[in-house]
């Protein structure tokens, strides 16, 4: 089974992993031939496969060491839960879509006019839910001890040092972005973007029931951000980042001495040194001019272009301000995969590098 482990290790390398995930994500949601994914049978097959994989993985000491770390156990749970509930919402959504296609109301509509007394029906459900959660927490707490390591020691930095697991997506972004973007700007924009969502979503349909066909755009955007960028970045940051933040496959031993050559290069170096064969100009504005223009163009030209072509419909429906805000948020989100590929394909470090002012993009 060594070939299998090596293959999995190879597949989990971020460039390959994320390329695969991007492809699978869009195919699963958009390719008509894959709609069977949203059936109970597909769900059972996928989860059996996932469960078997984890069960098999646990026989491997390296895999076991990282997955059974007390704080990592809930992340495995989260991965399965997120997967299941993403599937469930699509299963219910596609079922409703089929009904709507036949001019029938969504399933929820059949019962939404019927009013049920809270006592006993809702109170009963809540009570059951509380009991189940209590039992689960107690069993979980008896069998899995909360982690405690050596006493805090400011003089001894562990390798790797990791943020709490729910911030590991942000920490993973540090690989591609400077701290002010990965740790401040993008988290801030995630919050702002989520809060702005109800105000910049021009689609009035699909309010109060599961559907996919009526809200393709919104669901694709949200799930791309949530499933692909947020959850998968956490998984990568938790399970595939070892000492020195190097990549390690799930079956690979965390070797402190693993050496990964750093050959990252800034855009200004590519432009001035490699292409023009000149030295780097002393003035940072001249030096980084190309990068600054590219970034500005990214945020201005693309919205203008899309507003007149592909997104013309949105632009007319939303008006200038909403459209610009939507585009800015979208472009910020998409900048992450762009930056990832720039790194993987061209070893690009910074598009704009002004270390004089801690301003690197």
């Amino acid at each position, binding site marked *: 089974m060594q070939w299998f482990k090596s293959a999995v290790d190879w597949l989990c390398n971020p460039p390959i992993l994320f390329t695969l995930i991007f492809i699978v994500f869009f195919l699963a949601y958009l390719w008509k031939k894959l709609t069977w994914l949203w059936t109970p049978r597909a769900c059972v097959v996928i989860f059996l496969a996932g469960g078997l994989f984890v069960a098999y993985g646990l026989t491997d000491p390296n895999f076991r060491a990282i997955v059974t770390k007390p704080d990592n156990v809930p992340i495995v749970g989260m991965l399965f839960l997120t997967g299941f509930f993403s599937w469930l919402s699509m299963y219910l959504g596609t079922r409703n879509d089929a009904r709507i296609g036949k001019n029938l109301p969504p399933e929820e509509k059949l019962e939404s006019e019927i009013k049920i007394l809270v006592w006993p029906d809702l109170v009963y459900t809540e009570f059951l839910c509380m009991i189940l959660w209590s039992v689960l927490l107690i069993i979980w707490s008896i069998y899995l001890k909360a982690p405690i390591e050596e006493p805090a020691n400011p003089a001894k930095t562990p390798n790797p*040092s990791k943020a709490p697991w729910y911030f590991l997506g942000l920490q993973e972004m540090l690989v591609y972005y400077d701290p002010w973007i990965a740790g401040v700007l993008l988290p801030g924009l995630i919050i702002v973007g*989520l809060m702005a969502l109800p105000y910049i979503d021009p689609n009035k349909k699909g309010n109060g029931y599961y559907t996919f066909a009526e809200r393709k755009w919104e669901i694709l955007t949200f799930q791309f951000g*949530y499933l692909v960028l947020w959850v998968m970045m956490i998984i990568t940051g938790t399970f595939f980042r070892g000492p020195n933040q190097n990549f390690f496959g799930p079956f690979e031993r965390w070797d402190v001495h693993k050496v990964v050559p750093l050959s990252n290069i800034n855009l200004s170096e590519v432009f001035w040194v490699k292409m023009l064969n000149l030295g780097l100009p002393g003035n940072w504005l001249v030096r980084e001019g190309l990068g600054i223009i590219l970034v500005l163009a990214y945020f201005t030209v693309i919205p203008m272009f899309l507003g007149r072509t592909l997104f013309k419909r949105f632009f007319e429906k939303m008006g200038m301000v909403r459209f610009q805000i939507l585009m800015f948020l979208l472009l910020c989100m998409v900048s992450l995969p762009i930056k990832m590929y720039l790194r993987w394909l061209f070893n690009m470090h910074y598009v704009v590098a002004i270390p004089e002012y801690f301003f690197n993009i």
Partner: protein
Amino acid sequence: MADAPRKSLFTQFRESQIWNSIFRHGPPDNTRNRSLAVLTNVFLHLHPVKVRKSGLRLKYTWCAGGTTFFLFLVETVTGLLLMFYYRPTAEYAFSDILDLRAQVPLGIMREIHRWGAHAMVIAVWLHMLRVFMTGSYKPPREFNWNIGVLLLVLTLLLSFTGYLLPWDQLAMWAVTVGSNMARATPFLGNEGPGAALLKVGDISLVTAGDDARFALLAGRFVGAAALLRFYVLHCVGIPLVAAVLMAVHFWRVRKDGGISGPL
């Protein structure tokens, strides 16, 4: 007297003055009393008397929001118990945590608290996913979605501040890595873009001794002052804000038309 059926002990208790002084309605076996059971109870009256049948379905709500709230209560209760034993000082914090397991009878309180916290983070994400996938953030619920986003952020902050309290290597360095980000805040962090521009003559206004990270940690590194600060925020500050926002959140669920459903 022999033909009168004997009342059960429970029925007798139910007819007693004590019971009737607490529950001012008859047994909930008819619509009126079932309504009163909700209306006359300060906890249950967070609910309306009646809800949409579609909104009652587990497959619709996943009970994710309710689970989040329940876990918040679990965290409150277990957290309160932990506070009896735990002293937030660099001297005692770590050994108090060890004692929680070794000395306290049935010492799984910290486990319940920690796993409950992880579960709460996951539950609140799933709740967001559910609300998104049912389009429930759309009018008239835009504002409540915003409150929900704030509550999600507070949940993460609660978890983050709590992460430091065991005062072991895991805690200290996770918070060091997390709070290092604050150093890069534009203009407010000493390694953030623009901070170098803020100076009077040769004197920098934003330094490691007064920037955003310093405000967060009450020091230049994660030390005793940070431990106390995180403790207070974790046990009092953030839960208070979260409780207020939760009150608004639940109230708005009702005011915006109850659990969402097709119009």
